[in-house]
């Protein structure tokens, strides 16, 4: 029996430590992991809990991230609660197995500390790895700070393991900005956290020798499509379960999460859409801009990046007063508009109002995103709103040195 970990009402934890404590409190059966900056401390701390008697489950050291997720898949198919952590290059190496985990409907929890992808090699935070995994069939939750990294990791188990969902869940947090920044965190006591997560309910477990099953079957053109359709429907339908788990978590802790977080949107004339720790920067910038310059800025953020909250994004942006929306993508777009731009613009094709939408690529490789820069971009949106058309290229770069970079001009109302 695992020892109880003495916790104060308020602890000072960085995002990595917060995530590792949530994994410990969920009493994971198997963690198979390979270390990589900046997520190393998650599994390092977890290994220490295991060695010191705070964890009953197994910790498996493997030779790569591909092996780490493969070990997690095997253990989950066997019938255990399973989790691991990774970042960047390790995440990239895991990608093949991420698709296996979701297709096999195994509710593995992966804590991802977001970091840029090489080349050039870079250990700092951006969302390249998050974007790389966005079509892998996982549920993606996004934390902006340590408290949320802790809270959402607990929620991740309860969402993924729900019998109507049975899908793997990633909990993202920003490399260094969140993972290495110590903040006040209010944890649950061990027994309360475990009670919230609940006992693991095995489904189709291979250790049930009275009901032998095949996991990981092959299907060709006559069956594959039906299986992927069923999987997609489960992911879309998980929205209701996510809402329910967030509600239960609020009832327990008073801390409220929504699939789309919105700030000051009621009377907003311009809006900024973004993910991760930058949301907090943007909220501060918007408040100050409202006070000092009277520009009505609102912020929205898809807390749940997958299943993409098409419904709620549309609800938030379908407002008569809203004139301009800027979507901030913290990942190199690879020859396209940023993913957040495409998702949000897609949601806006079926709304009554049709605000102007622009795209910024920002923060690559850990480039700082300041309040001043956020405000510059917000003022630019206000200029679009006042002019009645997009006065800049549709896609621009924020915070990069050199001649101004921009792509595509508007064809509306100029």
């Amino acid at each position, binding site marked *: 029996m695992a020892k109880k970990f003495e916790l104060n009402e308020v602890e000072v934890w960085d995002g990595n430590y917060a995530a590792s404590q949530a994994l410990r409190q969920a009493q994971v059966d198997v963690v198979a992991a390979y270390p990589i900056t900046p997520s190393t401390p998650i599994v390092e701390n977890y290994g220490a809990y295991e060695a010191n008697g705070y964890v009953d489950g197994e910790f498996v050291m493997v030779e790569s991230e591909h092996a780490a997720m493969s070990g997690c898949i095997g253990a989950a198919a066997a019938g255990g609660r399973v989790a691991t952590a990774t970042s960047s290059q390790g995440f990239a190496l895991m990608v093949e197995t991420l698709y296996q985990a979701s*297709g*096999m*409907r195994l509710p593995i929890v992966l804590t991802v500390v977001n970091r840029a992808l090489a080349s050039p090699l870079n250990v700092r935070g951006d969302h390249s790895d998050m974007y790389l995994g966005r079509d892998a069939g996982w549920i993606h939750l996004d934390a902006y700070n340590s408290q949320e990294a802790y809270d959402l990791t607990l929620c991740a188990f309860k969402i993924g393991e729900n019998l109507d969902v049975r899908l793997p869940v990633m909990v993202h947090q920003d490399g260094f900005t969140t993972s290495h920044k110590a903040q006040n965190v209010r944890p649950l006591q061990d027994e309360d956290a475990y009670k919230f997560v609940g006992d693991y309910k095995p489904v189709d477990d291979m250790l049930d020798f009275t*009901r*032998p099953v095949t996991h*990981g079957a092959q299907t060709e053109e006559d069956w594959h499509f*039906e299986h992927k359709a*069923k999987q997609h429907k489960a992911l879309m339908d998980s929205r209701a379960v996510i809402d329910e788990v967030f509600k239960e978590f609020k009832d327990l802790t008073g801390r409220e999460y929504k699939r789309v977080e919105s700030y000051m949107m009621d009377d907003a004339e311009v809006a900024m859409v973004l993910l991760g720790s930058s949301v907090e920067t943007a909220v501060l910038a918007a408040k100050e801009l409202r006070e000092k310059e009277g520009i009505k800025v609102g912020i929205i953020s898809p807390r749940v990046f997958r299943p993409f909250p098409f419904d709620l994004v549309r609800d938030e942006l379908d407002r008569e007063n809203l004139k301009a929306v800027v979507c901030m993508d913290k990942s190199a777009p690879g020859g396209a508009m940023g993913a957040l731009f495409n998702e949000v613009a897609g949601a806006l094709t079926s709304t009554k109002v049709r605000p102007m939408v622009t795209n910024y690529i920002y923060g690559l490789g850990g480039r700082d995103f300041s309040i001043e820069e956020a405000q510059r971009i917000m003022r630019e949106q206000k200029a679009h709103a006042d002019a009645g058309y997009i006065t800049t290229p549709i896609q621009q770069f924020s915070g990069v040195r050199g001649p101004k970079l921009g792509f595509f001009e508007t064809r509306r109302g100029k």
Partner: protein
Amino acid sequence: MSKGVLATEKRGIRELGAEEKVGWDAVPRGVVLESFEKRVENVAHIPPEERPYSDFNSYTATVASWRVIKPVYNRDICIDCQNCWVWCPDTSIISRDKQMLGIDYDHCKGCGVCVEVCPTNPKSLLMFAEAVDNEEALAQWPQKKKKEKK
């Protein structure tokens, strides 16, 4: 082709791929396929012909049509060494109590490994064209080879 030894009313009853094509709402979650129609105890100790195999198990499917050449078994020469049983990659050699009984032609793909590993002289298993009748094949069996003088 006759079904051969220990064929049951379930073995190889359908061509692989001839299953009823159900929709996305009826496929099993996560492509998890049940081997048996009901719960089983100590199934490893139950002979295959008595197990309650489900339609998802390859036991109930036949792949005989994949084969163009087949092994034919000659009981008169076999010494029951079990080499073919050990080496067959598709568990298509049927043996009970260490006595070789014959070939599961529903699942044998005609790879010829059993013939290759058979140690008798002449061999107790030989490959013939799929169209050749087994009785006809046995009638053509070669004689024992004499040792060559050194």
